[in-house]
């Protein structure tokens, strides 16, 4: 068996590790091993490729080695540093950033290959198609993911941004990309005569319009939908990588890319389902911030808000027998997950039964809140999923809502508003409701929360961390 066969087998082995690793990540018990298996497959596939490049006739020149070593050191170092140091609350935007560079790399690989081929005999039709697809999808992912990341970081407004003519611009960019693709393919087929310079110029136009398309595609989408968008762009990158595999005729790229494209697509659908949103609606845009979002339903706000102090809340909590904590994004940004655990432990010590109601999209992404509370050592059995805990709100003495907004809005049960149909936590069924929130500000859906004017609700106006610290002190003093 010659070495190239061995390398091929090693690469297939890497791909098998990806599939098995991804499958193991279906269950919390095996997820970590699944990720490690997948990482092991990655090491094998990359090393096997290096070996094949070194042993092939001609080997690798010094310049290539320098590029590989320095490039890997810089990129890998940056990735390692940011991944190690990122706050868990900021993790979604980091994943989006990693996705952006992955898409960018896929586009660059195709561009380099195309330049080399047009410099020589010209690219054949099939290669041209895959190059253009790779460049277009990779470029859209690159800028789209950067914008998504910027929205989550707050560098760009989380509100949908729509400027005059933005829809038309998006359509024009799509048309230009498709037209450019058609021109290049016809050129490769010999129907149209394109010299090398013109071909490269057309590819440049496709690249530029795809880059701008990525921006105009994500800008009009509200921040609440970003997790779904990031997941969708993740699937795009997978597809771009598979296209790069066709361009380079490399099976491990095709397998891994297709794997991520398909699983990413399924995951996007699962996420959208959890938020009761359709992917098409999200991409067409407009959750919050659009027209009519300030309208309130009948029986909605207009009622008065009851403000309540930490001492009163502490008394209610200590004399309750059943407390359900509803953590939301406000808890995450305030880094208050440790404070909430401290409060819960104090209450448990006083014989109060405490559990946590985790909405599927609590935090910034599905499952994000579980990660944050797990980080704070909240016992896993206390975390209850929405369907499981919703009936228990009827028997709950106090529901403590910390920084959650839209996922508790009873308006979701009525049609005709931006949160309509979204599954919510039945917080309003609790005997008493305490909301810790900085202000009466609106959530991502951009509408008022009817829960806040419910006569059963007391508002503790504070930053989640400061409010919880006050509560802990007040409970201790009792």
């Amino acid at each position, binding site marked *: 068996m010659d070495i190239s066969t061995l390398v091929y087998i090693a690469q297939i082995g890497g791909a098998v590790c990806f599939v098995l690793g*991804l499958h193991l990540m279906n269950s919390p018990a095996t997820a970590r091993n699944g990720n490690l298996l997948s990482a092991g497959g990655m090491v094998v596939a990359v090393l096997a490729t290096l070996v094949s490049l070194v042993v092939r006739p001609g080997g690798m020149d010094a310049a290539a080695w320098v590029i590989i070593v320095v490039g*890997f050191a810089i990129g890998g170092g940056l990735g390692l540093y940011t991944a190690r140091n990122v706050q868990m609350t900021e993790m979604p935007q980091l994943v989006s950033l990693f996705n952006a560079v992955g898409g960018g790399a896929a586009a660059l690989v195709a561009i380099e290959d195309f330049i080399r081929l047009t410099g020589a005999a010209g690219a054949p039709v099939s290669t041209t198609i895959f190059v253009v697809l790779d460049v277009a999808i990779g470029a859209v992912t690159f800028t789209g993911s950067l914008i998504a990341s910027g929205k989550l970081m707050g560098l760009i407004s989380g509100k949908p941004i729509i400027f005059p003519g933005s829809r038309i611009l998006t359509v024009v960019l799509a048309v230009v990309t498709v037209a450019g693709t058609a021109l290049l393919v016809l050129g490769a087929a010999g129907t149209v005569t394109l010299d090398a310079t013109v071909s490269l110029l057309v590819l440049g136009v496709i690249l530029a319009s795809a880059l701008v398309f990525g921006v105009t595609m994500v800008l009009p989408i509200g921040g609440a939908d970003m997790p779904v968008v990031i997941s969708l762009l993740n699937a795009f990158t997978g597809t771009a990588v598979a296209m790069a595999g066709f361009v380079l005729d490399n099976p491990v790229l*095709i397998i891994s890319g297709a794997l*991520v494209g398909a699983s990413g697509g399924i995951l996007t659908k699962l996420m959208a389902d959890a938020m009761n949103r359709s992917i098409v609606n999200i991409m067409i845009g407009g959750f919050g911030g659009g027209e009519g979002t300030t309208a309130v339903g009948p029986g909605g706000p207009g009622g008065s808000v009851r403000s309540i102090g930490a001492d009163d809340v502490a008394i209610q909590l200590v004399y309750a027998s059943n407390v359900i904590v509803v953590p939301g994004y406000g808890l995450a940004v305030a880094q208050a997950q440790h404070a909430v655990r401290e409060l819960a432990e104090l209450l448990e010590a006083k014989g109060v039964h405490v559990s946590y109601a985790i909405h599927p999209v609590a935090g910034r992404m599905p*499952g994000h809140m*579980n990660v944050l509370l797990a980080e704070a050592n909240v016992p896993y059995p206390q975390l209850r999923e929405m369907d499981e805990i919703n009936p228990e709100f009827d028997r709950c003495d106090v529901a403590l809502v910390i920084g959650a907004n839209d996922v508790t809005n009873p308006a979701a049960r009525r049609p005709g508003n931006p949160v309509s149909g979204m599954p919510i936590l039945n917080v309003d069924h609790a005997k008493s409701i305490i909301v810790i929130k900085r202000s009466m500000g609106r959530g991502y859906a951009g509408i008022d929360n009817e829960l806040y004017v419910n006569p059963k609700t007391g508002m503790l106006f504070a930053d989640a961390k400061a409010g919880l610290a006050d509560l802990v002190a007040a409970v201790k003093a009792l």
Partner: protein
Amino acid sequence: MNDLLFPLTIFVLAILVGFEAIAKVPATLHTPLMSGANSIHGIILVGGLIIAAEARDPLGYVLAFVAIAFGAMNVVGGYVVTDRMLQMFKRKPAAAKAKGKS
């Protein structure tokens, strides 16, 4: 065109595998799973290595360099951040149980 049939077969079968591999994942694991899939497409690093080996002019070198740096960031960062997330689901069982029972 026949050269294309083999890669196309692989592509289609891999898509079907991708659909099956994560069909029944709980919402809790959506974020880690997305991050895990995100690291897998860092395999584009392999593409970067191939074009680096074949590049012969300054432009090619620059493109290969950026592609490798991007790919490496995707791979290394992706796996590390996914592992950090998953680590939290697997905590000191003794301490967690003691707190759960008290």
